[in-house]
């Protein structure tokens, strides 16, 4: 057995050496180089509904927190998913950049790697480390009671970004800053109606099933099509699971069995880019099938410039400025509404070329 143990050790050493070699002399294609997202010229978020109904807001007195100076405070940020897609990368970067900009000395950042139990313990750790303000990008909307209780006991204000927490405003959390996904779906529908002159057959590439983003982006799109363009027929809806490869595969099946399709509504940019690859592979030309998608990543905006994508509704991930601005207002004694809806931009052929560098 000692012989085989020795061999295993040797194998392990070999493997470790191989890993070093692989990462050491890598040389990738240089066309892939792109400027880092979230740069200074990046488009910051703008508030669409700056204040809620009077009296419903949350002031520092009602919340019970004691005022502190953001610059010297411990601030915790809990990210939900691995920073492997442009949205998450830009979101985390924006929080870090803004914290550095306004001089927050002690920003603690965690990442739950898409595991909800990890996110709960991440936030509990942050509270234990003395966080005085929590910014959370929640993986799920439910199941936050253990964290909320701890935070309430210590009177730590919580700002959730991009997804909501189902809990009581002011007692459990300070505010939610995010996009209106139903509205995004409606605006995508408006673009599709414009692209098709209000008539034609449209396919939907749905997001991951059982996700509120998918449900709301579908709902908004269908409502708007039904209300504004009854001559547009939605003939096909299949999930592409928000992934490029799945979007490509489903589109390949789609254009083969429904060659008369006029438009594709992709519920995120990755699936839209997969659809573009599928259309190219099927010998279609840019603009033959009108694609409308949501997110506003750089790849998709470039797709508009190249003529393959008709329009993109943005879902802005740069929460940093707005989150800390809201926190500062709260500390100054201003009333904070339950929900801060941000205004998302829209890209089409008129502005895509100038906006590519600002997309994330």
């Amino acid at each position, binding site marked *: 057995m000692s012989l*085989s143990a020795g061999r295993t050790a040797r194998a392990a050493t070999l493997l470790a050496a191989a890993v070093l070699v692989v990462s050491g002399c890598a*040389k*990738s*294609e240089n066309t892939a180089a792109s400027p880092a997202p979230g740069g200074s010229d990046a488009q910051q978020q703008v508030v669409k509904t700056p204040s809620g109904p009077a009296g419903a807001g949350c002031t520092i007195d009602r919340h019970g927190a004691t005022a502190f100076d953001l610059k010297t405070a411990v601030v915790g940020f809990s990210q939900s998913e691995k920073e*492997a897609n442009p949205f998450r990368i830009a979101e985390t970067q924006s929080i870090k950049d803004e914290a550095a900009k306004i001089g927050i000395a002690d920003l603690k950042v965690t990442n739950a790697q898409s595991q909800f139990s990890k996110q709960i313990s991440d936030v509990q750790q942050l509270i234990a480390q003395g966080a005085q303000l929590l910014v959370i990008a929640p993986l799920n909307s439910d199941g936050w009671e253990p964290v909320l209780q701890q935070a309430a006991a210590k009177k730590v204000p919580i700002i959730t970004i991009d997804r909501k927490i189902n809990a009581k405003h002011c007692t459990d959390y300070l505010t939610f800053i995010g996009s209106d996904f139903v509205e995004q779906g409606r605006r995508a529908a408006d673009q599709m109606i414009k692209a098709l002159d209000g008539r034609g057959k449209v396919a939907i590439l749905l997001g991951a099933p059982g996700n509120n983003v998918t449900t709301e982006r579908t709902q908004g799109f269908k409502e708007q099509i039904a209300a504004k363009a009854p001559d547009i027929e939605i003939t096909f809806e299949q999930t592409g699971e928000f992934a490029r490869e799945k979007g*490509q595969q*489903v589109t390949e099946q789609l254009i083969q069995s429904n060659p008369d399709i006029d438009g594709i509504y992709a519920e995120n940019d990755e699936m839209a880019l997969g659809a573009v690859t599928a259309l190219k592979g099927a010998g279609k030309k840019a603009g033959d099938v009108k694609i409308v998608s949501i997110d506003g990543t750089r790849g998709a905006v470039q797709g508009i410039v190249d003529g393959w994508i008709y329009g993109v509704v943005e879902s802005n991930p740069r929460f940093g400025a707005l989150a800390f601005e809201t926190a500062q207002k709260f500390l100054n004694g201003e009333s904070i509404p339950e929900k801060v809806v941000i205004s998302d931009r829209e890209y089409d052929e008129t502005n895509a070329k100038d906006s590519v560098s600002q997309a994330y």
Partner: protein
Amino acid sequence: MTDTVLRRGAAGRTRVIAWLQEYGVYAAVVTLFAFNAVFTPHFLAVDNFRTQLVQVAPIVIVALGMALVIGTEGVDLSVGSVMALASAVVALYLGYGALPAIAMAVLAGALIGGAGGALVAVVGVQPIVATLALLVGVRGLANVFLPQLREFTNPTLVALGSDSLAGVPIVVIVAVVLTAAVAFLVKRTTFGRQLVAVGGNREASRLSGLPVRRVLLTVYVLSGMLAAVAGVLATSRLQASDPTSLGLFMELSAITAVVVGGTPLTGGRVRVLGTVMGALLMQLLQATLIKHNLPQSWTQMAQAVIILAAVYAARERR
């Protein structure tokens, strides 16, 4: 009198099951094909066959390796992660040109396969545990190498994923060649005989002097290399390297193809053509449901029914 009828009935039933084990998957593919030919618009078109074959090619290639491993009474859960690793390595080495990058990716697959094989053959870890560790670890490694999706424009790699030779997509040609190679390996070489013997009865093989460790090690290395090739092909088709999601749940698709194709999980037998048919059946099923615009949950339930039927037929073997 009743006795003989009963006996004849039982014998008939056994015969039916034996026939199903042997040809069930072919019959299912033919049935589903016929259904689509009649009820699915634009099904009988060259473009459609091309789409189905191109989409199934990576699964077939991974399933070939999986069939070899299952033939030795093992299982290789790391294949999906190896695909992701191959994808990351290709993107990292593309600066040297497409061929060196592909070679590095296949080498990486061989190394991971070797690691899994060593754990199984030398250390004696259960295959499911050894390769489960690799499933988790190698995906992580791939993400370390390439944390984010990266697009590429290398013309050779793009051509590999989208060009055709004499009307047949290159991806499909690769899958056909590899299928023939694996079939030859299993049917016509000493190694193939040894593999089946080791899977059938490892102790007896060892006692009769077969190089059990070497056979096991080689089988996992082959599985790793085949998974890496599949990863390269999937990457070239996507025209982007996406180690976060490429090959997710591929191990399950591959095992399904092998089992549905009639290879018993107990080892000692490898059905190469059956495996290809198993993959084709699952692909056709998914295509059918997508083309008829049925929800994905239907696909999953239909797949479950087919897997259960296959396992039921296999249970009656002996």
